[in-house]
């Protein structure tokens, strides 16, 4: 019993340690480059707590992060590196925007259709590298990254050719019809949050409480064993990716209809990449994703406030992100500490028996 709890603590401690270390590195960098050191550091670390509006910003940022974090967690559960989630999120957003501004439907139905199509487009996007890997054994890392570049360009073209509002001086889409927009909850955050929370609960139940989820996890941990046990490994891997793509595309659609009123030129969110960070921090467990999303959203909002009011730019968050994912993904990190704790515990047990 004790040993198991050490292992669990160890995971939590590693994530916390990685987080603290990366924030420490960031502070050191701010101290080196900034002329407004104290202000920058305090804005970065505590400013999001200073007003209701900033807290609303954190919640707003959390929503798309939970979508892409969940999508990445699903994909990582089957141990493939299909990195097209960014493209799926983007396409989901573009398609939902197209439907929101070009089609008229009843209130409620309109938003539902736009979200659904956004999700389907996302599923199709992630399906492409998945099927190329399954049928032709084409490296999914390379094909999915290439696909992202293609989709961005096609999305730009779609906006410029079909959705552009000629009355605007910028290249931007027509205004979304109100019937397609998602309402705000409590005037604070987009109601898309409810969608993603439901998805997280369903995914957690599916992964940990159903046969299908067990198959997914076993396939990721030991594909050979899964294969011998008679599971259709290829099919499981592919369907999991399709579900992940749907989640990511739906995330893009929800984000667009919840927090925007037009699709802007060369809109690139980066949320697909953030999803990888969130999933890795959460150890691919949907139950942990709200917490890790909150951490990243908080850091993001803090860095944006900092970059608006001081000379330190918000790109500094990428340092935090990359340090966290490397350390959390490193099995060797803090391993000696874990082994020592386990050995101490064993010795303690022995002594207790005597």
């Amino acid at each position, binding site marked *: 019993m004790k040993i198991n709890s050490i292992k669990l603590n160890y995971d939590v401690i590693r994530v916390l340690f990685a987080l603290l270390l990366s924030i420490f590195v960031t502070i050191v960098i701010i101290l080196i480059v900034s002329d407004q050191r104290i202000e920058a550091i305090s804005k970065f670390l505590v400013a999001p707590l200073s007003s209701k509006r900033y807290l609303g910003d954190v919640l707003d940022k959390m929503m798309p992060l939970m979508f892409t974090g969940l999508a990445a967690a699903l994909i990582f559960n089957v141990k493939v*590196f299909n*990195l097209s989630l960014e493209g799926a999120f983007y396409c989901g957003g573009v398609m939902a925007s197209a439907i929101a501004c070009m089609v008229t439907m009843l209130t409620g139905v309109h938003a539902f259709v736009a979200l659904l199509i956004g999700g389907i487009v996302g599923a199709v996007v992630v399906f492409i590298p998945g099927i190329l890997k399954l049928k032709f054994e*084409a*490296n999914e*890392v390379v094909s999915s990254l290439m696909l992202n570049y293609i989709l961005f360009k096609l999305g730009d*073209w779609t906006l410029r050719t079909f959705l552009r509002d000629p009355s605007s001086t910028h290249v931007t889409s027509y205004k979304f019809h109100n019937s397609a927009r998602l309402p705000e909850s409590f005037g604070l955050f987009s109601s898309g949050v409810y969608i993603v929370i439901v998805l997280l609960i369903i995914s957690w139940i599916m992964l940990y409480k159903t046969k299908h989820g067990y198959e997914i996890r076993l396939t990721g941990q030991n594909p050979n064993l899964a294969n011998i046990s008679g599971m259709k490994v290829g099919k499981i891997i592919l369907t999991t990716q399709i579900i992940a793509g749907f989640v990511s595309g739906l995330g893009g659609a929800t984000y667009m209809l919840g927090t925007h009123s037009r699709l802007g030129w060369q809109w690139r969110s980066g949320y697909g990449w953030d999803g990888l960070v969130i999933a890795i921090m959460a150890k691919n467990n949907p139950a942990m994703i709200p917490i890790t999303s909150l951490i990243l959203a908080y850091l993001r909002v803090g860095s944006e406030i900092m970059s608006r009011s001081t000379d330190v*730019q918000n790109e500094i968050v990428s340092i935090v992100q990359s340090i966290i*994912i490397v350390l959390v993904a*490193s*099995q060797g990190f803090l391993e000696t500490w874990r082994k020592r704790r386990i050995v101490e515990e064993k010795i303690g047990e022995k002594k207790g028996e005597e």
Partner: protein
Amino acid sequence: MMNILSTLFSISFVFSIFRMTTPLLYGSISSLFAEECGISNIGIEGIMLLSAIISVITSSMFGGSALAGLLVSLVFGALAGFLLGYLVMKLKCDPIIAGISYNLFAAGVSIFLLFLATGEKGNSASLISGTIPNINIPLVKDIPFVGALLSGHNLFTYLILLLLPAVSYIFSDTVWGLHIRSAGEAPEALESVGINVRRVRYSALIASGIFAAAGGAYMSMGYVSLFVGDMVAGRGFIAIAATALGNGKVKNIFLACVLFGIADAVAINPDMQNFIGLPSEMIGTIPYVVTIVALVIYSNRAKSRRMLLKNH
């Protein structure tokens, strides 16, 4: 039709193929060293991007000396390669996740550095940075047509073309190269004859980092003479695809890079754009589409070859 043929065979088009292929070659050799030693380097894109900004900034700090910028960025590349080895071998990080984190890091930090140096996030036009010179080859440049075709390219283009046979030789005939390949294919065998596998892998990854950094320095000091955000634009990943297509053989990697270089050159050539007649965004996808198609065809062939072997 005649128009497009004359464009295809025009000297400026051939020059743009050379220009486009050069960074891919550096990236591919970088990927080759990593793949052969058994640790994939997905972070090539990120190393190239950071090297591109570092070389511009240090070059301007040293009064516009291209050499200074280049040297610092190569040192950076070596460190990045070493760090990848440390993360994967010592901290037991998955190499693909380590590579992803390199790319995430580079995407943000390159802009962060650009802002520190220039106060803006667009490009480094306000910095006076050096350029890697174009070389006119004596005698050759005076030969009609051929001279115009072969002379006047960037120093780094010639350098990588000279390095390709050298790299091929390293992997086929030198102790170091054979050690690297054994570290990838049969590390236990290498260990059993008393060779330190870790040290071999570190050396290969340092070489990988240096080549990637050279490709990045070429981007901001040769390909163009300034840094622009996200200027590597997936070339690091296309290079990885080229290495996969080349299947460990330098000659085939070269051919794959030229194929992608041509796709790039077509995508930016105005005459070709007119000829193809698609919107510019569609034409911009050509290099990426070609990469996916080539990857699928190659992987499928490799797969059926394996199946054939299995059945016999």
